């Protein structure tokens, strides 16, 4: 078992996808990308091999946040934006649990932005699945903090004014130790990313591009359409040259002058300069550059996969270590001794 799940009890019997389906009727809109993500997660869970009762899904508010109701694990559907904070309390007090947070672009990046960045910097043992559909679904279609500038919505009839967040850039800036991006409709890729996230000790942030077919349909079509995807999607694999396009005809290189990344046609001359993806690089610089490689309008050159995965001390482990150290240094707490303190006096009756 990996470091991340070392303290979580294993399942006694083999589990199947069915074991992870709750008895509740799934109530997302027909055609919602959330169905695919739910199926992928339910399908992946048996592979984790940990006892179902030691898995907890915590969510905030939004369409995606209904997720815990459909998982036959422990779960909490909490309040808007606060899931990372609640999950932090659970994960830091119960290291025998595998704690997952399900959130959306509004929940995680707008009302809950503060909790997200602080969970990331602390590196609590949480797996955060951020369903990004670039729109508010549950409140019926207002623009979100990841919507493109100029988005026409009910609350922005003349177009939205705010520059969007790039969730992965934000996460890397917040000292995240694991940052990945995947797509709802690519079950295989999604599952592989979940696998790596689950293995990661500390906070893992997985951005999942998710289609809202009601309020922002086809937002990620460029990455899903087979034709376009060849040019649009860059699949990152640790230790492999970053190449994509038909027959890997394109590659990512670093501009020696500015350090920026750019896309080039790979030739015999420049092939050696194609960047080899190093997710474990101590410096976040390249991961940051990769997180913003895509053209914000066309989404061309969108890297997916694990951008960054580095080892960093895990908050819950450090917290537990301090408790152990305190016992080693001072012995197990003695209540009578504590209450008496230093200066006492006695009154004889």
């Amino acid at each position, binding site marked *: 078992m990996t470091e991340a799940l070392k303290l979580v009890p294993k399942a006694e019997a083999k589990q199947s996808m069915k074991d992870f389906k709750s008895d509740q009727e799934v109530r997302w809109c027909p055609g919602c990308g959330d169905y695919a993500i739910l199926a992928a997660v339910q399908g992946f869970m048996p592979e984790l091999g940990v006892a179902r009762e030691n898995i907890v899904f915590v969510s905030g508010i939004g369409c995606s946040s209904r997720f815990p109701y459909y998982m036959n694990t422990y779960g*909490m559907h909490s309040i808007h934006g606060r899931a990372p904070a609640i999950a932090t309390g659970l*994960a830091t007090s119960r290291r*025998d649990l595998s704690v997952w947070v399900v959130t959306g672009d509004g929940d995680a990046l707008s009302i809950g932005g503060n909790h997200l960045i602080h969970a990331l910097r602390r590196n609590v043992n949480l797996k955060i699945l951020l369903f990004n559909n670039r729109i508010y679904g549950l409140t019926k279609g207002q623009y979100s903090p990841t919507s493109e500038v100029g988005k026409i919505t009910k609350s922005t009839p003349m177009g939205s004014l705010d520059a969007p967040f790039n969730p992965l850039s934000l996460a890397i800036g917040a000292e995240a130790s694991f940052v990945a991006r995947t797509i709802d409709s690519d079950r295989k890729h999604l599952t592989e990313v979940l696998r790596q996230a689950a293995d990661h000790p500390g906070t893992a942030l997985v951005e999942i591009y998710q289609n809202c077919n009601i309020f922002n349909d086809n937002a990620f079509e460029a990455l899903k359409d087979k034709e376009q995807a060849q040019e649009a999607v860059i699949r990152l694999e640790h230790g492999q040259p970053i190449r994509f396009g038909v027959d890997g005809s394109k590659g990512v290189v670093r501009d020696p002058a500015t350090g920026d990344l750019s896309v080039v046609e790979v030739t015999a001359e420049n092939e050696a300069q194609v960047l080899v993806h190093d997710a474990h690089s101590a410096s976040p610089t390249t991961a940051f550059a990769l997180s913003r490689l895509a053209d914000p309008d066309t989404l061309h050159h969108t890297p997916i996969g694990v951008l960054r995965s580095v080892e960093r001390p895990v908050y819950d482990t450090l917290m537990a270590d301090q408790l152990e150290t*305190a016992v080693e240094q001072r012995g197990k707490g003695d*209540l009578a001794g504590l209450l008496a303190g230093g200066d006492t006096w006695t009154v004889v009756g």
Partner: protein
Amino acid sequence: MTSQVSSPAEQAEPAEQQAGFSPPGAGDEPSRLTGQRAGAPESGGKEVRRLDRVIIRFAGDSGDGMQLTGDRFTSETASFGNDLSTLPNFPAEIRAPAGTLPGVSSFQLHFADHDILTPGDAPNVLVAMNPAALKANIADVPRGAEIIVNTDEFTKRPMAKVGYATSPLEDGSLDAYNVHPVPLTTLTIEALKEFGLSRKEAERSKNMFALGLLSWMYHRPTENTEKFLRKKFAKKPQIAEANVAAFRAGWNFGETTEDFAVSYEVAPAASAFPAGTYRNISGNLALSYGLIAASRQADLPLYLGSYPITPASDILHELSKHKNFGVRTFQAEDEIAGIGAALGAAFGGALAVTTTSGPGVALKSETIGLAVSLELPLLIVDIQRGGPSTGLPTKTEQADLLQAMYGRNGEAPVPIVAPKTPADCFEAALDAARIALTYRTPVFLLSDGYLANGSEPWRIPEQDELPDLRVQFTTTPNHELADGTEVFWPYKRDPETLARPWAVPGTPGLEHRIGGIEKQDGTGNISYDPANHDFMVRTRQAKVDGVAVPDIEVDDPSGEARTLVLGWGSTYGPITAAVRRVRGAGSHVAQAHLRHLNPFPRNLGEVLKRYDTVVVPEMNLGQLATLLRARYLVDVRSHTQVSGMPFKAEQLATVLKEAIDD
């Protein structure tokens, strides 16, 4: 009254009128003082007088170390065995501009040979470290009292800064007081010259010089202060020894100088206390210990999620020291995350706590509502301070009662427990934990700045006096479906308490989901059914209404009272002192004090209706009074004060007298 020049302070509590404190040189009548002239060899042949109680106020710049000085004098006094009560009073600024009125920090200590209830209305002795301290405090000092001033600071500029055109030490404005001019700074520097410290460094010890002088005046034991100083400055032994030297120099100064002709003894208050082992304790410390004790008695790990805020931060500091008790403290990114983490830990089976003050409660409201819906145990500790908004961070108030009671969306009832004295914070914490764990509900613990920072002697309880708070997690299915299947229903309630089962993650077979959306009774599944919502709202209310709280007890020794005074929280001390005073003057008044504000004791309505007049003093604009009127249709007489300071016993006594005479 015993002295010719009587001060309000002396009259505050009738018990204190029997012997009375008579400031030297002002109504000196030996027959009423059990003084011995030239009796005590340890005071160098000087006169020693015996007093039954004294109120001392140390006042200086916020950088002068007045709180430390007061704390040390308190510790000396506690270990000597007097009853005591303290009132620290300081600005919110860490270092307000030096020498200004807003920058004055003070510490008042009342100690006695009998049981006392308040830090005292007015000081018998004021120690003023500079002109600002004198100016800011002189109005509280009764004529005839002693004032020790640091004359070194009474130069032109510091005096001008606070508007003294002429020196109050010379212009006759202090003629009614017994002033001791002492060049504290010069004497301290002189005493420390062999330490090779800079003038600035040496000057810093002047508070210890003052402490030494006062320790001599009141025959305080000194060993522990010296021990304390050596420990505090363990890493800087030179500074430690300089402070000890200043402390001793102050003591010796009192012993040798002619200006201090008299010293005082206040005998231990042994007869006022039941047998037991005692210590001095502040409200926040007692509350912290109460939480640790509750965790131990419940056999659940303690988890604190908190964000620093005055005057609650000391609980976070204290609990973070006790990791060897399995206590986890989490300093969150904000108030919301503080309670969020606590709620997450509660879901995982911890005794979960969040600590804050009024502004923090406002931020936590939504999460408290979630906790009401999730029906998980959670303690919300609100150390109230002056509001609204940032208000008066370092001053006390009781104005969060209605926020605790109603400050959430929807019908979201939360039990409320309020401690009445600093030491009582210990038991109140245990009581709040009992309610939270038994009924699976968030519970408010409403302390305030006065209790938090004030201190008093506390009889340390024996382990077997602490309540058993153990809970039973649910580990097996609790419901059988029609087809015979055994299932777990997270909202199937205990018929007695209406508490729902607490099944923590890691329990096989009981996997379930909870959330803030309305749930179907029993199954806990999402439900928008109108009848179900009506039922669930009423059930949550019924659960809180049904929380077991003891009947309120009425103290009416004569049985003839027609007026009842009813308080809650930290007003207990001043109210009780006022009641003693009124009774001492021959009037009848009944007293009752509420620990439980939600639900109220079952007999409260009947008690209120028994009296012609019910007086409700509060440090707000009548919040309890509003609740009582609404609930019991009794037109209580609300008496309010929102000065950021506790009630004075004298003033409350007048209020009671008027109510009785009406």
